[in-house]
């Protein structure tokens, strides 16, 4: 009897194509591209704003208009909502469980609290921006 364990190879570049769960995981991780993109977009806004002239700021706003920008932001909004915001809220109770006495607070309480807080934060931002 000789031992000769066989190691099945795992693709380092395409392993996530193996099942739906892994594909969803990769889609979730790629929201970081959107996070980076919008952080830089806000930074470009600051550059325009720092020039101290209304014309510069209006140029920036004008450069952000158009059907292709509507399509981009619309897609980004949906993608971000499902793969970042909702994914993050739904996983939050795992990272921060709450125990009261002998009972664990049901996970959906923590998730719902996140959604409520999100609604408040969003309303505040829209109010700040004068959109509501």
């Amino acid at each position, binding site marked *: 009897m000789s031992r000769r364990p066989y190691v099945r190879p795992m693709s380092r570049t395409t392993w996530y194509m193996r099942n739906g769960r892994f594909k969803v995981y990769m889609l979730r991780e790629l929201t970081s591209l959107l996070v980076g993109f919008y*952080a830089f977009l806000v930074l470009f806004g600051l550059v325009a704003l720092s020039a101290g002239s209304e014309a510069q*700021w209006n140029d920036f706003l004008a450069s952000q208009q158009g059907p292709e920008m509507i399509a981009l932001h619309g897609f980004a909004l949906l993608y971000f909502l499902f793969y*970042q915001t909702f994914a993050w809220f739904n996983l939050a109770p795992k990272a921060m469980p709450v125990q009261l006495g002998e009972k664990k607070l049901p996970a959906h309480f923590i998730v719902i609290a996140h959604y409520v807080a999100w609604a408040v934060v969003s309303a505040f931002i829209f109010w700040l921006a*004068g959109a509501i």
Partner: protein
Amino acid sequence: MTIARKALVWGLFAAGGTLTSFVFPSLIALFLLIASGNTPVGLEYGQIHAFAASWMGKASLFGVIFLALWHAAHRLRVAAHDLGLRVDGLVASVLYLVAALGSALAVYYLVLI
């Protein structure tokens, strides 16, 4: 007791993830309003300039940009590893450097306002 410096990196990543989850949908929606020509009054020059000129405005804009960039950099570092790019040192240096540069530029332009 030694805890790897990754604790700091991860802590900022988690903070950025939480912040962007709460704030970015509204932010993207505002860009959507701008794109469709319905720029809200709060984003007209006078108001947004006054906001960015205030200490509260500066602090929150910097916080959002810094944490978002850090979050993105760290998550892309992990994604690069997941996609088979096995040069973690180089990937991490480039991504964190871009995040640091973006944050430094944010400070510079916020001070100018």
